[in-house]
């Protein structure tokens, strides 16, 4: 029997008891299962490892319950600035992007860097312009935000505002 396998993660962190609700954990389990299946199906049908990892990560980027793509953490300015990388173990070809805004699938942009640019790593405006040149799908800033990330950002902003109180 031919060997193939896939493993995925959706983030590791130390949390206080009860911080992750049962409902949220259930959403995340479903999301993990869906992403795993997206990658596994490609491998099962004889597709490449590179296609499989991209498919699995795209699925997680689409899922607002994970910190990537839609659902990304917000910067101090309240924006989603995303990073992604992809690497082919056969050729050691790689593509990476950092500080990317508006690009719906940062992993798709990293794959485009791998396949369609002479470079390995693009940042910020350069990465965004490359996404435009490649015709990759973009989304408005609000697409990347969720109620949870907006609340987290507001709490941080409030905390900073309180710390400033009393100073002129």
């Amino acid at each position, binding site marked *: 029997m031919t060997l193939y396998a896939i493993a995925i993660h*959706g983030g590791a962190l130390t949390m206080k008891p009860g911080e992750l609700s049962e409902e949220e954990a259930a959403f995340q389990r479903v999301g993990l299962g869906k992403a795993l299946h997206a990658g596994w199906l490609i491998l099962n049908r004889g597709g490449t490892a590179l296609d499989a*990892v991209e498919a699995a990560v795209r699925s997680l980027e689409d899922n607002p319950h994970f910190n*990537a793509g839609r659902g990304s953490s917000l910067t101090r300015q309240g924006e*989603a600035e995303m990073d*992604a*990388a992809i*690497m082919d173990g056969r050729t050691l070809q790689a593509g990476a992007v950092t500080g990317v805004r508006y690009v719906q699938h940062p992993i798709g942009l990293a794959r485009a860097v791998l396949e369609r640019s002479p470079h390995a790593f693009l940042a910020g405006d350069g990465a965004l312009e490359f996404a435009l040149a490649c015709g990759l799908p973009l989304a408005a800033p609000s697409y990347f935000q969720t109620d949870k990330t907006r609340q987290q950002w507001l709490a941080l902003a409030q905390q900073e505002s309180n710390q400033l109180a009393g100073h002129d």
Partner: protein
Amino acid sequence: TVGAVALDQAGNLAVATSTGGIEGQAKGRVGDSPVLGGGTYASNDSCAVSCTGDGEVILRGALAHEVCALVKYQGLPLAEACQAALRLHDDKLKGDKGFIALDPQGRVAIEFNTNVMRRAYRVGEAAPYIAIYQ
């Protein structure tokens, strides 16, 4: 942060990692995920690794490449290599760390020092494994 490692039927490995960074991060901050060798690395002669956790810590340890190097040059089994990388410079690289890794023999390793690690794997036609808590 999310990530995936895969081995295809032709025996090739690949890795992908994507992240929204950390809550309230400074504009322009870069963590480990997009840095090749930092949070993401794959080579057919060793393994494929994707990291998650405290980005600055993982980046300073070049931990994805560390795992590959331990497999390639020290001949460690994948899980042991991940455990060694997890403990690397324990006093200087304190923080949350999680790895998923896969070698050309289809062995999966998932190692982490946190109480939550959202993870899943499937080898061939075997049933999928999905877990969140330690």
